[in-house]
């Protein structure tokens, strides 16, 4: 359990969160970045590292990963610190107006200003639309496999057709008493090797493979005991099961931030374009996660938002000082 002290806590270490360190650093404000992903760069690193970006001012073409590396170098003089691979769960305000953020691993960050640069939000499991499904979460229904031993000698139904559905079917076939894989289609788009193995396991009778089959319902008495489906002929059926593991990929959601009392509009945080402040004093939102009239989800717009945010955040970090704006061409970049 780590405890961190900083001026500004930045949630999200994508390009906009990283550049915010630079703009804050020019005003002598220290930053700590927190990201649910295990590395910096956000979408750029996670989703399209090799893709060229053409609309960064002054850079006719740059690979996403190279832009992240450049930003890392640009902010290095301001010695940012990082908590990576942890999701921010809680935000509480202290009596003196400062904030304490807590993460999924119980790290706490004490700061004067919170900047949400969360991009798409955090990626959470996509849930099938099945009545009462949520009632069985933790009582037989789980969307991820943390400890495969949980399933030893149990009857497991996996639903889905992607790589993770295939991989876990193969793995759990050697652990569970019985594994049934339910997939909507006749074939798998996942890795051909994995698909072949699944078909082989089915031919050998080591798993039950139900193609062209759709999940319909979960059944049980407080705890899951069966999964209902419709087969390729639209005929209903059911499988006795101790566990249902729907593996339908991850979908970006706002996550715990949605419960912080911020004004939201369609999964985005509403801000004032004067300084990109949210409705909660001392909390700002910049980059893809915010919304305002005319919002464009562009990295360059996020950079602009970071600059204006920093000018405004100064009053929370140095309430007794007057802010005087200085150009880097005149003043240089004074490292910490």
């Amino acid at each position, binding site marked *: 359990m780590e405890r961190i002290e900083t001026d500004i806590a930045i949630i999200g270490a994508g390009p906009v969160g990283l550049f915010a360190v630079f703009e804050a650093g020019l005003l002598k404000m220290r930053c700590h970045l927190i990201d649910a992903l295990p590395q910096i760069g956000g979408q750029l690193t996670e989703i399209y590292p090799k893709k060229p970006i053409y609309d960064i001012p002054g850079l006719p073409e740059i690979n996403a990963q190279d832009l992240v590396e450049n930003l890392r170098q640009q902010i290095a003089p301001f010695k940012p610190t990082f908590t990576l691979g942890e999701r921010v769960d809680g935000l509480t305000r202290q009596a003196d107006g400062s904030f304490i953020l807590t993460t999924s691993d119980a790290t706490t960050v004490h700061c004067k200003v919170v900047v949400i640069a969360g991009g798409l939000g955090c990626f959470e499991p996509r*849930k099938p639309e099945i009545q009462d499904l949520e009632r069985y979460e933790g009582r037989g229904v789980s969307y991820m496999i943390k400890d495969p031993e949980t399933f030893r000698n149990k009857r497991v139904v996996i639903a*889905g057709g992607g790589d993770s559905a295939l991989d876990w079917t193969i793995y759990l076939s050697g652990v569970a008493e019985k594994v049934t894989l339910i997939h909507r289609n006749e074939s798998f788009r996942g890795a051909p090797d994995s698909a072949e193995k699944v078909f082989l396991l089915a031919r050998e009778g080591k798993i039950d493979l139900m193609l062209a089959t759709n999940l319909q319902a979960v059944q049980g008495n407080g705890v899951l005991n069966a999964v209902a489906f419709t087969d390729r002929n639209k005929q209903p059926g059911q499988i006795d099961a101790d566990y249902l593991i729907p593996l339908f990929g991850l*979908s970006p959601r706002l996550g715990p931030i949605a419960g912080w009392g911020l004004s939201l509009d369609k999964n985005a945080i509403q801000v004032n374009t004067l300084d990109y402040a949210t409705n909660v004093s001392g909390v700002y939102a910049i980059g893809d996660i915010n919304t305002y009239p005319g919002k464009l989800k562009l990295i360059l717009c996020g950079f602009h938002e970071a600059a204006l945010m920093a000018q405004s955040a100064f009053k929370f970090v140095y309430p007794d000082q007057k802010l005087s704006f200085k150009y880097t061409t005149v003043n240089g970049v004074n490292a910490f």
Partner: protein
Amino acid sequence: MITFQVQDRQGDRRTIEVPEDINLTLMEVLKASDYPVLATCGGMALCATCHVEVQQGHAHLGPPTDAEGDMIDTLPNATHTSRLACQIRIGGHLENALFILME
């Protein structure tokens, strides 16, 4: 102008008319028409919040790219005519199509 129909999750159906050369995706037109399409990823076939079922006119669309097909394959409520609106460019081939919003 081309016209097609959109049905929202409440079952309300509306006719949409747009210039053929508007150079937008269906997702962008849906957003501009005030449908509650989140389009969280901004059109990169990553979030599937613009998932639509093409009930009429599916044959005119051409096959999805691998990225789109892979994403659709992970969706629990996908059908054989599911597509991501962000990957469908507006054009004459959408004339008389019917899109059902799935998210």
